C-alpha cells in the first residue's frame, strides 16, 4: 500500500471520531435532577430599562437552596438568560448549579438569567425593535452599566449579592459571549470571571479588535473561559473559530488566566452546554479562598 493510501484509509477510519457532529454534544448527568440534591428556586421577572431607554425584557433569578441570607452569595449573570434556564435546553443551568453547589464544586451562587431588551411595538401588527445586537455586540460600558446600575441593585433588594468582583461571573453564547467579555473588560471592578461559548469576537459591531486591544492594554485581573467549535460560523462578520483562536493567543500573550476548549460543533450551545459543569468548576476552582 502506498503511504498516501494508508494515510487516506487511516483518515477515513478515524473520521467519525475526529468529527463528532454537533448533535453528539448532549447534557451530561450533572444537568439532570438528582435525588437528594436540594433544588433552588427560580422566579421570573420583567424589567424596563433606563440605561437601554425604552427596552423591556424578562429575567429569571435562581436562588440556591443553600442560600440563607446570612452572608452574600456569589453571582452568575447569563445573557440570553431564557435559554440557560430552559428545562430541556442545552445548559439547564439551575439543575447544574443545584448539583455543583451541593457537591461543593462552586460557591453558593445566585444566578441572574437575563434576556436582551426589545422596544415593544406601539401598535398591533408592528414588529418589536430587537435590541440584542446593540446591547451585546457594541464595545462600550453600556451593558455593564445596565447590570451594575439597574439589574444587580434590583435583585440586591431581595438577596445579598457579593460585591467582590472575583465572586461575580458573567456568561453568554455567541453575541452574549462577547457581551460577557465586554462587561468584565469595561468593569473589572465589578466582574472578573468570564464564560464565553461560541463568542462573537468578530466584526458584527467592531468586536474583532479585542485580540489587538488585549495585547496592548495593561492586563486586567480577569479569568476567561472560551468554548468554540471548528464548524462554527464563517460569514460577513468574520470567522468564529479563527476569532476565538486569536482571542486565546492574545490572552496567552498578555498572561491572562484563560482556557479555550475547541470542539467540533457548530454555532449552537450544545458543546458549551455539554461541558458547562466542567466549565463552572474551572471558573470557580479556587472559590474556597474567596471572600464573598
Amino acid at each position, binding site marked *: 500500500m502506498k503511504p498516501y493510501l494508508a494515510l487516506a484509509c487511516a483518515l477515513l477510519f478515524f473520521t467519525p471520531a475526529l468529527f463528532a457532529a454537533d448533535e453528539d454534544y448532549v447534557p451530561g448527568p450533572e444537568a439532570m435532577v438528582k435525588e437528594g440534591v436540594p433544588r433552588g428556586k427560580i422566579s421570573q421577572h420583567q424589567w424596563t430599562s433606563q440605561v437601554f431607554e425604552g427596552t423591556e425584557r424578562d429575567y429569571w433569578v435562581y436562588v440556591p437552596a443553600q442560600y440563607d441570607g446570612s452572608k452574600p452569595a456569589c453571582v452568575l449573570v447569563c445573557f440570553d438568560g431564557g435559554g440557560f434556564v430552559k*428545562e430541556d*435546553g442545552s445548559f439547564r443551568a439551575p439543575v447544574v448549579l443545584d448539583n455543583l453547589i451541593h457537591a461543593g464544586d462552586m460557591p453558593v451562587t445566585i444566578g441572574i438569567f437575563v434576556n436582551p431588551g426589545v422596544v415593544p411595538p*406601539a401598535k398591533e401588527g408592528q414588529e418589536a425593535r*430587537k435590541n440584542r445586537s*446593540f446591547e451585546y455586540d457594541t464595545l462600550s460600558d453600556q451593558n455593564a452599566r445596565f447590570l451594575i446600575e439597574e439589574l444587580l441593585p434590583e435583585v440586591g433588594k431581595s438577596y445579598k449579592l457579593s460585591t467582590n468582583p472575583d465572586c461575580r461571573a458573567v456568561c453568554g453564547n455567541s453575541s452574549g459571549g462577547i457581551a460577557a467579555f465586554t462587561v468584565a473588560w469595561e468593569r473589572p471592578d465589578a466582574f472578573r470571571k468570564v464564560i464565553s461559548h461560541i463568542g462573537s469576537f468578530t466584526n458584527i459591531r467592531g468586536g474583532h479588535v479585542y485580540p489587538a486591544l488585549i495585547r496592548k492594554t495593561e492586563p486586567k485581573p480577569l479569568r476567561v473561559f472560551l468554548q468554540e467549535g471548528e464548524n462554527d460560523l464563517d460569514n460577513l462578520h468574520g470567522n468564529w473559530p479563527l476569532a476565538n483562536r486569536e482571542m486565546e493567543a492574545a490572552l496567552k500573550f498578555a498572561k491572562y488566566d484563560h482556557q479555550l476548549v475547541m470542539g467540533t460543533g457548530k454555532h449552537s450551545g450544545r458543546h458549551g452546554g455539554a461541558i458547562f459543569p466542567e466549565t463552572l468548576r474551572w471558573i470557580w476552582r479556587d472559590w474556597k479562598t474567596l471572600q464573598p
Partner: protein
Amino acid sequence: MNRTLFTSLLASTLIVSAPAQDMALSQIFPEDSAWELVVEGYEFTDGLTSDAAGNLYFSDVKGGTAVYRVDLEGKSSEYIPNAPGISGLKWGADGKLYACVSKEQRVVVFDKDKAVTELAKEVRPNDLVVTRDGNLYFTMTPTSEIRRIDPAGKMTVVSSGVVGKPNGISLSRDQGTLAVSDHGGKFVWVFRIEPDGTLAHPGNYMTLVTPAETPEVGKGDGMTTDVHGRYYVTSAEGLQIFDPTGRLCGVLPAPDSKLPIVSCCFAGPGHAWLYVGNGGKIWRRKTTSAGALGFEEPKANEVVPK
C-alpha cells in the same frame, strides 16, 4: 416551576432564539450587478424617490429648476417645472408629491395637476417621509430637529437635540420605526412612532463606517428601506447597508468616489433597482430585493429566501 411560568418561559425564549439573518452584500447584489449610468449633466442630484409604478423622480438641488422624472423605459423629462431648490421628495398615499424646498425654507405638496400648496414656511427642511396614514416627518438639519406635519396640517417638533444633524430619514416597512441619519455624527438613530404620531425611545442603533480622518463624523445622508427591513444610508464612505437589527451588512463606495453621494431609493421595474444620486449623475444597480414604499400598506419584513 409551575405550568404557566414554564409556558411563558418557553414563549419568551422563542422570541429571542429566532436568530437574526446574516445579510451579506452578496445576498443583495447578484454577481453580474454593476452600477449603470441613468442620467448625467446635472449639478447636484438629490431627493430621489419612486412612485408605485417604479418611475424615478429627483431634483437638482443646486442647479436645477424642476422636479425631473425617469420613466421605466429610461427616458428622462422635466416633470414639474419652476420648482427649484428641492432637497427631498416623497409620494403620499393620496397620490400627491411632497417636497422639502430647502432653498425657500418651506415644505410643499404638488397635487395631481402639479399645483403647489404650502404646508410649512420659515422652516429648514432637508428630507422627508410620508406615512401611509398621511403623517409627514421631515428633518431640520441646522436646528437638530425632526418635525411632523399631521394629516390635518398641524406642524409639531417631535424630536429636538437628539440627532445632532438630522439628515436622511426612512420608515421601517411596518411603519412602526423611523430611522434618521446624522450628518454630523456616526450614528443612524431609530425612534418608535407612537400611535399619536409622536416619537419615542430614540436609540443610536446603527454605527456608520467613518473616514479615518473624521472618525466621529460619517456624514449620514439620504436613506431608504427595503422589503427585508434593511436600511440603506448614503455617507462620506459611500452607501452603507444595515440589517433590521442594526448590524452593518456592508459598504458600497460611490460610483464616482470623487463626488458626494447624498440620496438613494429603490425604483424601476418591481422597485428592484437601487438608484443613487452621486453629484451631477444618477446611477442604478440591480438587486435581488425591492424597496419598501411609504405610501403602501405597512407590512412585516419579508424573510430573505435561503
